Every structure is written in C-alpha cells, then in structure tokens.
C-alpha cells in the first residue's frame, strides 16, 4: 500500500500561470481533502469530497477548483496563481464509520512557490 501520494513534490510558478496538483489514494477511502499549511496558520481546509463526483468548499476555497472523477483521485487546480497561494499543500483521505471515524491519512505534501 502506497497510502496517499501527491504529485508534484515541488513547483515554482509565475503569477498568472495555472497548474493542477494530483492526489491519489489506494485505501478505498470515500472522503478526500485538500489543505494548505502556512506558518502560524495551521492546516486550513480548501475543498473536500465525500465521494466520487462530489466536492464541497472548505475554509479557504477562493482561487482553487477541485474535481473527483474517480474515487481514488482528487485534483486541485489553480487557474491563475497568485503569490498569496505560495504554501505547502497536503492531501488527505479518510473513511467514516466504525472505530476509525474520520481518521485522516495525509500525503507527503507539495511545496508551491508563486513568484
């Protein structure tokens, strides 16, 4: 089991460029999440999905879009990158119910710099 994987690990963009971050999980989890982590701000939820074909906004959704076309994949898109989106992005997945209620498993992160 690879768990949660993220692609790419590092990326540098210029203001206005677009990119897509890919998250994949092999644990058959229903729920998937995208967070950003900034110094002093903690982990903040951008968007999440409770199942294939569904998405919902989190705490800081502006400037981002997501898609969950397949259960195992969750994509985060930046249509026009801004310096304020410089951050470390984490993907996570979880299943609900039983003894592992919403225990989230995290990927290794993508470090994004927008110049």
């Amino acid at each position, binding site marked *: 089991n690879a768990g*949660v994987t993220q692609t790419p690990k590092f990326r540098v963009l210029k203001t206005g460029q677009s990119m897509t971050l890919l998250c994949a999980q092999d644990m058959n989890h229903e*729920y998937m*999440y995208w967070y950003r982590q900034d110094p*002093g*701000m*903690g*982990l*903040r*939820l951008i968007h*999440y999905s*409770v199942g294939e074909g569904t998405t919902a906004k*989190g705490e800081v959704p502006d400037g981002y879009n997501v898609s969950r076309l397949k259960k195992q994949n969750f994509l985060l898109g930046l249509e026009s990158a801004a310096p304020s989106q410089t951050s470390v992005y*984490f993907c*996570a997945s979880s299943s*609900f119910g039983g003894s*592992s*209620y*919403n*225990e*989230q*498993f*995290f*990927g*290794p*992160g993508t470090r994004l710099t927008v110049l």
Partner: protein
Amino acid sequence: EDQVTQSPEALRLQEGESSSLNCSYTVSGLRGLFWYRQDPGKGPEFLFTLYSAGEEKEKERLKATLTKKESFLHITAPKPEDSATYLCAVCGGTASKLTFGTGTRLQVTL
C-alpha cells in the same frame, strides 16, 4: 464554528523531562478529537482519536486524555526522536471535516 487552541506554541525539554501539551476546543457535538505528529517537511501522521470525556489512549511515551473542554498529550521521559510538531484537531456535529489547531513545536534535547 469549531475552534481549537493549542498551547504552548513551542516547548523545549531535556531528555527524560516529562511534560504535557494542551488542546482546548469548542465544538458543537464532539464526534472525535484527534492528535497528529508532524515532522519537518512531511505530512501529519495520525496518533490518537478520542471520542468522549474521560477516555485515555497510550502509545509508547505518549498518553492522550480528554475532558469536555480540553485534551492533554502527556509525554513521559521524552527522547530526542519525540521532537516534532504535535497537532490537535476536532470533528463536530454533522461535519465531515476536521478543524486543526496551529500545533505545539516540541524539541527534546540531550
């Protein structure tokens, strides 16, 4: 709105010097309180889930406890490899998402 406050922001201990990290929370209908460990440059790693006041869980030198307003992560006789940032999060009400605190950065020295 769910809120999580962790204290202290940073803690420096000598090897073997036991201490506790605090996580205060406000949530409407707690469904679970979670502790994670995060090493520099890596994603958070799950440690514990606590579901109700009075519950305790242990793992090696770590013990997590829960009351109706706060959780403590007790570290007994820490070692340098326990150095990390410890994150607390809550899931409440009908939410299917977690609210995280900003973490406590722990450094354990020889």
